[in-house]
């Protein structure tokens, strides 16, 4: 087990921080992507160097071993998120592909004319637009999950939008803007009456909280590898077995077929039915290492370390005049979105970068949350396990300096 309070130790596991200038910057854009531990990086190199092969089809040992490795990531993810079996895990290229997959398979088949898809008004574009598209294609409607001012589901009003017409409800587990989490368990319970399947976008969850899809009771759950210390171009999608069976395939091509005629083809069994063509083999094998890395973290300690950082951040941000922080302090992840009165978020972020602090600004791919907050953008600082108390101080110092600089000019 790692001791997360010893950040110097943690950082040693991530070669990025030992790689000169850039590593010395304060990297607070972890919600965009995290850095990778050396185990992940070297797993990919080793694969290409010693084990490179296509999978699922070779009759030689090299190919079987690659298949084995690839499939073992599926098993690791199954264990990591607590699904009933590895068969419930589809390996994808990321959260975006996962949402599109469900929209274009489950959605295509089961969302009919006049039906409703409920989406919260505070979703990342990846968990909104694919639903808009399938709703339009099938003549269904998108409606809002009621959200309270505190940015969590308004359970008092939820019942009023639930009905048999609702064929799916899509929501994030942890917000990419505020770091706040939704009560998925309660949502699932509320949806039981009408048997509404619940789709959870967990892109921001896995590196901060323990995911357990069986406990949550949701029907779909997805995440991206690259936000979870894993490689880009990888992701996973949990689909409850009963849906797996019924869903048509997404992409088609090699590997996912059982019988092919010139006019017609039949599909192989799930989950491979959803994995057409040569996948990101090296990436998925690298993702397995990332999962092992996370499983070596004590999630209780993670919570207390991240909470420690969050309390510090909240305290220090409060010292900056005219700063408005979005979302409340009960965070599941140390993600902080804010604006400073009369200063443009772009100016802030650009000058923070000049001061060695890397944050994001803009709508954060979450236009509807911006609309909800009635802002056109904000600055986001998102922390991860390797960020230190010292970096929080440096960030605040740079922020104050930049604010002072920009205030002169207004």
């Amino acid at each position, binding site marked *: 087990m790692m001791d997360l309070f010893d950040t110097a130790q943690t950082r040693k596991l991530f070669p990025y921080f030992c790689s000169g200038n850039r590593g010395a910057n304060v990297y607070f854009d972890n919600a965009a992507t995290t850095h990778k531990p050396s185990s992940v990086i070297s797993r990919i190199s080793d694969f290409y160097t010693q084990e490179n092969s296509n999978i699922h089809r070779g*009759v030689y040992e090299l190919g079987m071993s690659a*298949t084995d490795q690839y*499939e073992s990531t599926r098993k690791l993810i199954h264990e990591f998120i607590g699904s009933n079996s590895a068969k419930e895990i589809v390996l994808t290229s990321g959260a975006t592909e996962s949402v599109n997959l469900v929209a274009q398979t489950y959605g295509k088949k089961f969302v009919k004319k006049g039906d409703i898809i409920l989406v919260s008004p505070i979703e990342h574009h990846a968990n909104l637009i694919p639903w808009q598209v399938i709703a339009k294609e099938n003549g269904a409607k998108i409606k809002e999950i009621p959200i309270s001012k505190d940015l969590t589901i308004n359970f008092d009003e939820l019942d009023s939008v639930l009905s048999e017409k609702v064929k799916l409800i899509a929501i994030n587990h942890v917000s990419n803007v505020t770091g706040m989490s939704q009560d998925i368990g309660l949502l699932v319970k509320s949806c039981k009456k009408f048997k509404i399947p619940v789709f959870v976008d967990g892109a921001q969850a896995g590196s901060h909280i323990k995911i357990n899809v069986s406990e949550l009771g949701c029907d779909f759950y997805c995440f991206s590898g690259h936000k979870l210390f894993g490689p880009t171009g990888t992701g996973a999608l949990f689909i409850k077995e009963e849906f797996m069976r019924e869903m048509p395939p997404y992409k088609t091509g090699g590997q996912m077929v059982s019988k092919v005629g010139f006019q017609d083809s039949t599909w192989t069994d799930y989950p491979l039915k959803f994995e057409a063509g040569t996948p990101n083999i090296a990436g998925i094998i690298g993702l397995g290492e990332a999962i092992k890395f996370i499983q070596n973290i004590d999630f209780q300690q993670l919570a207390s370390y991240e909470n420690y950082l969050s309390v510090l951040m909240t305290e220090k941000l409060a010292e900056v005049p005219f700063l408005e922080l979005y979302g409340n302090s009960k965070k599941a992840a140390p993600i902080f979105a804010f604006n400073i009165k009369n200063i443009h978020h772009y100016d802030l972020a650009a000058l923070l970068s000049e001061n060695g602090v890397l944050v994001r600004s803009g709508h954060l791919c979450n236009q509807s949350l911006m609309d909800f907050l009635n802002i056109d953008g904000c600055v986001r600082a998102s922390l991860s396990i390797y960020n230190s108390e010292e970096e929080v101080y440096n960030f605040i110092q740079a922020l104050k300096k930049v604010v002072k600089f920009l205030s002169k000019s207004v």
Partner: protein
Amino acid sequence: MKNRIKQIISDFSLFESWEDKYEHLIEFGQELLEVDNKSLRSDSNLIHGCQSKVWLFCRAENKKLYFYADSDALITKGLVAIIVFIYSGASAAEIIKEKTDVFLSIGLRKKLSMNRSNGLDMMLEKVNDCALNYLKNEK
């Protein structure tokens, strides 16, 4: 069944070179299973998705299960013959309980499994399904 498993393992332990091992495997298949068993080779007995064709059929008699198989490839025929040899004559309960991986023990699993070309896993799955079905129908 335990004895038959032991017998297979000890038989195969005699061979070291690939030639000897595969010769034994192929002969085992050819001796145990009929050649080109026409009645077996029906679509309903076919295990789909393997590169070589494998037909596997199960019959119950006196609360024991009996397996019959064929394949158009020699190696696959040897593999399925081992399965037939081991599981034929066992009870459904015994079959379900049995967890020994013979193919690992005789050094063929690493070479031949974890892929869909020979369908080894699918054969074992079908044997297991047969046993589960038998138990279900019994009730």
